[in-house]
């Protein structure tokens, strides 16, 4: 007998939650304890009075599992609202990455040229290295990082995705 894997879809969920101790652990832990995937998770305080945070989770699973994930999130006491951006329709997703490359000569010039094309900004430079700052959808960042591997990539830091619905409505 072998363990079977199921076909998975990528979904971006946003959660409005109480900004209190343990909320993040409760949500992240629920994903692990029920065997759900987390591809990325971001969290930050978003309300004026610091009582509410917004969490964006990128997860993968077959549609019934995604449905369960949403229901299980809603079941947690500090979770007020869950929106499946992928289901809800047009939305934007953005991520920020810091990318360090090192090299000299042609390699260095090529890194700079590519950064320019991808609208990455230089935020630190030495004679032998750059740190680029880039924002965009996850695909754009993936491609940029792949290109940087060719020209002396040292390390990458990524924030994970935040997302909002397009249009005037709140998600």
């Amino acid at each position, binding site marked *: 007998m072998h363990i079977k894997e199921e076909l998975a879809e990528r979904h971006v969920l946003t959660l409005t939650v*109480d900004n209190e101790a*343990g909320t993040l652990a409760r949500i992240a832990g629920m994903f692990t304890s029920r065997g759900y995937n987390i591809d990325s998770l971001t969290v930050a305080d978003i309300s004026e009075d610091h009582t509410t945070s917004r969490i964006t989770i990128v997860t993968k699973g077959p549609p019934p599992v995604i449905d369960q994930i949403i229901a*299980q999130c809603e079941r*947690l006491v500090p979770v007020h609202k869950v929106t499946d951006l992928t289901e809800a329709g047009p939305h934007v997703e953005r991520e920020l990455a810091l990318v360090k490359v090192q090299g000299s000569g042609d390699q260095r010039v090529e890194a700079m040229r590519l950064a320019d094309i991808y609208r990455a900004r230089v935020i630190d430079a030495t004679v032998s290295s750059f740190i680029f700052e880039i924002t965009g959808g996850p695909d754009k960042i993936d491609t940029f990082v792949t290109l940087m591997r060719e020209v002396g990539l040292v390390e990458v830091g990524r924030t994970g995705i935040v997302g909002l619905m397009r249009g005037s409505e709140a998600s």
Partner: protein
Amino acid sequence: MNIIEQDNKVPEKSGAEILIDCLVEQGVDTVFGYPGGAVLPIYDALFQQKKIKHVLVRHEAGAAHAAEGYARSTGKPGVVLVTSGPGATNAVTGIADAFLDSIPMIVLTGQVATTLIGTDAFQEADTVGITRHCSKHNYLVKDPADLAATVREAFMIATKGRPGPVVIDIPKNVQVATARTDIKSNVPNRFHAAGEADYVAINKAVDLLANAKAPIFYTGGGIINSGPHASAALRELAELCGAPVTSTLMGLGAYPASGDAWLGMLGMHGTYEANMAMNQCDVMFCLGARFDDRVTGRLDAFSPDSYKIHIDIDRSSINKTIRVDLPIIADVGTAIRQMIDVWKGRKYKPQPLTEWWARIKGWRAVECLNYPASTDEIMPQFAIERLFAATKDKAPIITTEVGQHQMWAAQHFHFDAPNKWLTSGGLGTMGYGLPAAIGAQMGHPDALVIDIAGEASIQMNIQEMGTATQYRLPVKVFILNNEWMGMVRQWQELTYESRYSESYSDSLPDFVALAEAYGWKGIRCEKPEELDAAIAEMLAYDGPVMFDCRVSKKANCFPMIPSGAAHTEMILNSDEVSGTMDDEAKALV
């Protein structure tokens, strides 16, 4: 305006005193607990009051299960009080048990002082971390000023919606420090429970019920949790439409076993008629049940042709394992009442359902609960039958441990009322029955409370005999002693060609002598012809009794849907057992 003025007049109280006040405010009369360093301030506050009775258990697992028994039998939340570290970890099994079986419970745990948290202090454990995913919610309270609001919200969360355990971890310095007592909790109500069902869905459900040719009610623990009104509504609806009723292990008693429409329990050790009817029905009403794997058997073969309506208060129970056609998120008792109103409003008449009942009659004729009779040894099923016959007029509360005896009790003891059957269904916790019986007896001092036990399970919390002695609780423990972890042995016979790996209950205590050592009465019975008299002796005794009922060592529990099989593939008796299974089946629990 006059806040400043008041400031000096408002008395302050310690966290421990505030806690006790809040428990009293919530109507708590009984707390099951065990003291220790990190809860001494609370124990001191308990000592100085008279409204709450504390029941001193012998192990914190006992406290949690006793609180479950109290809650399940009274409908009120059970309250547990334990110390930090080992006190809290010992209670975890009971918390997880209450979580899976949706039992309202408040667990108060002591914690080291806030200044020591994270330093690996003496008896420090991350209680909030450990219980996070086996409780409905949990808190670490860092200021006595937050206690009142926390306790109020905790009781609301534990009891509203789908009930469950809530843990409140209280550091020792928070119990000692003082706060103003006039703090009104203006907790924004952030917890919303489903109530009434949407009438569009209810109308549709009633339509389907009125036109079904082969309807069935598949009911669960949700009906018990919804309250006695839900059981009453279920009975009325079943009467109105004439459809058959089956129930999960957790829902027994919601519909009376003596009712005409009763098919018996469904699932792995359910009746042939219940499982066949589930498989063949055209419209299924799942009321407060959750398509547990013990109920469904093989998912792709589960009731393949039926239209499924699922009423549940917890949206995450919908479509979790079985896709349903009409989900209704509501309090199940309210929703059934709404269905009755619609049915009556439209003046529907019950259909004869003649063909459906004729088929059910055919399945009933299999008499799946029959077992080989014996005159020289006590068959365990016979023992339950005799116990039922001797007690049925006394409206007993029955608790169980986990194993074959639990399933035989579910099959052969018949329940006519809710809140009379307390068993660990979801977690399947051996050692649940005795403390649960103690909790139930605390809630119902005059009731006959019997733990139907196995000789292996009873040893898991046998120390609670001392608790029953101390509080003069006349609980009866009726052990079906087969000298085996019978359920494990049964699976080994079915799956592993009878290789009995560690399933024999060796070195058993002399249960009669043990009973006497605890100040209980001990009775042993080995002969079928002496059983009735021995049971009568147990019932006549005004105090706790441990009854060592020596039963057949070889009996297995049938009917049975083997793991990975469909409802239609029931094994009716031991002759049909093959002795081995493929890996797919072995891998299923």
